[in-house]
């Protein structure tokens, strides 16, 4: 176990080095000077002022120097300050990452809870009307972009029924859980639909394969009920690829909820990242990227460890 965690940590460090280096070079390659963004396009272009700002930000240093400097600071927990807002990047992240993480977590949780029974039903009734109906529904959910679902949910639950607010975000810490959930449930549902569709397809196809196994026939010959066989014999062996996709998609949601965050005016991390990119705010881009990459690796490490819980043959591998 200790050895496993040590290799994972080494892999995390290597991943982070690669990710930060790549984002650093990307932002360096992007056209447009951050100084322009800071001063504003219409500002008086005094070459002396520009030169001073460049010197202050270290923009004149060679690329590698800047990267190593940034890396050294980051290692001590200092991700720097925004060029534009002067806010500490760490502060930005600590305010915004929990919001996005909560959205992603709720979306994945809802998707899994829906997808497992839907996928199992499709596999159990393969080729019958139950399978055809759920498969068609899943196909629809998969092909509608999540912002369309978001708009529909707002129309239904906010405009027509008036049950939930159309936008904004209440924090658990200041407004309490119930108020928080009122603002979280719609955007999370919008995100969950696509995930549910992906997950249920995966569960269906994996379970169809599992139901062909000899041990399922053997379980049947013991006189066990179909429900018992599905839940106690077929579900676990059918959930390995589901776990993999959950890990990957959870990471993807952390950086990819920007459209939904924009639609629902949620102060999440994706929203901030897009602004930073528009503004060439390299320090903010870099800081947020590192955090998302870390979350990605950590989540996938947890998934890898969970494989062993689900399938005993992987233990002591």
């Amino acid at each position, binding site marked *: 176990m200790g050895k496993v965690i040590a290799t994972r940590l080494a892999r995390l460090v290597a991943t982070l080095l690669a990710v930060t280096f790549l984002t650093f070079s990307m932002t360096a390659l992007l056209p447009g000077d951050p100084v322009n963004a800071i001063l504003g396009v219409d500002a008086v272009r005094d070459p002396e002022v520009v030169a001073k700002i460049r010197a202050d930000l270290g923009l004149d240093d060679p690329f590698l120097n800047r990267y190593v400097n940034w890396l050294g600071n980051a290692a001590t927990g200092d991700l720097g300050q925004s060029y534009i807002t002067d806010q500490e990047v760490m502060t930005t992240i600590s305010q915004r990452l929990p919001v996005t993480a909560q959205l992603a977590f709720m979306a994945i949780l809802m998707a899994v809870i829906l997808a497992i029974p839907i996928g199992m039903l499709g596999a159990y009734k393969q080729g019958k009307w139950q399978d055809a109906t759920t498969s068609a529904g899943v196909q629809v959910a998969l092909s509608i972009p999540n912002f369309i679902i978001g708009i529909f949910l707002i129309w239904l639950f906010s405009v027509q029924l008036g049950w939930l607010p159309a936008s904004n975000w209440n924090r658990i810490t200041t407004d309490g859980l119930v108020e928080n959930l009122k603002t979280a449930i719609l955007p999370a549902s919008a995100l969950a639909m696509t995930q549910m569709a992906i997950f249920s397809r995966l569960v269906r196809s994996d379970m169809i394969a599992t139901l062909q*196994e000899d041990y399922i*026939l*053997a*379980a*049947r010959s013991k*006189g066990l*009920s179909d429900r018992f066989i599905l839940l106690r014999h077929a579900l676990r062996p059918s959930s390995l690829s589901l776990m993999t996709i959950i890990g990957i998609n959870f990471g993807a949601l952390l950086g990819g909820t920007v459209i939904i965050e924009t639609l629902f005016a949620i102060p999440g991390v994706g929203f901030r990242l897009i602004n930073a990119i528009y503004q060439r705010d390299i320090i903010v881009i870099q800081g947020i990227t590192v955090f998302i990459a870390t979350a990605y690796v950590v989540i996938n490490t947890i998934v890898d460890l969970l494989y062993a819980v689900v*399938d*005993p*043959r992987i233990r002591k591998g």
Partner: protein
Amino acid sequence: MSSSAVSDSRPLLSVRDLRTHFDVGGHAVKAVDGVSFDVYEGKTLGIVGESGCGKTVLSRSIMGITTASNASTSGSVNYAGTELVGKSKRALRAFWGEEMAMVFQDPMTSLNPVVRIGRQLTEHLRAHKKLSKSEANELAVQLLTWVRIPEPKERLSNFPHQMSGGMRQRVCIAIALACSPKLLFADEPTTALDVTVQHQILNLLAQQQQERQMGMVLVTHDLGVVATRTDDIAVMYAGKIVEKASTSALFSRMRHPYTQSLFWSIPKTSEPKHTRLSAIVGRPPNLAALPSGCSFADRCPYVQPICREVEPKLQTIDSHSFACHLPVGSTEAEAALSANISAGLPQSEGAAARREAQQGSLT
């Protein structure tokens, strides 16, 4: 379902004209095609035949556990007075495990890899008989002791991959015995195992069958396996029974050329070293397109024109049944074989060599 009503003379299981056909692209694949036999309490029936002759489908059709949506079963399966063909899955489930159980071919794949042995041993017991967890555990230890697995208590928390193939098959047998079924199907129970383990498993099965006075159907491709461990033998070819007799009658006088060929293909330790193995020429016929006449004709050393035209009916003489126009041992058969040998028919070569060897040893 009680056994007290069944007298000794009435069979425990009576199969009549059972047919299981699979619809594959509009063609009927006749995996089981009009099979009839009886199994009595405390007796073992061996079903012998090559791979693909329908033996596995047969045993699964009798229990009714075939799940393929393109399969259709007709005929009659009477278990202790109850007709099983046509019963709903829900109704059949009451018989599975409790009245009849099955040991599968490959213990590597017939145990769930992610479920502990203890639970797999008793989950059906708990479902059928409503046992508590501790009662079930006690019984699981008892079961493992019966099938002679050392340290049974420790084994309950094992996963299948922590056991050897022979051990796993013992566990499978224990699972099948758990609810004390009256009828046990063993579908090639030793084919996937090491030769050294095969005998132990077969002996274990035979001993449990004797102690519990179960009816047993032992399905195998190996005549050697059934020779000493069965009361009756049915030889299957291309979905049909081609010969059926008591074990002693069958081995003392084989009537069907296929049975004889199977027997010849067993390597014997009494033969000199490097004796050529006697294989049956050709392959089993395609079950979707069976030839008219006898389906063994293309591989039969005795084959005559009539065999390709008229399908031989199963006839019974002194409770020995066989389906052949030229039964082995008849003068017609000897004449046919001589004619085929001199005509140089490839499937008769083995018989020719055997004849020569016999004559050589006589002179």
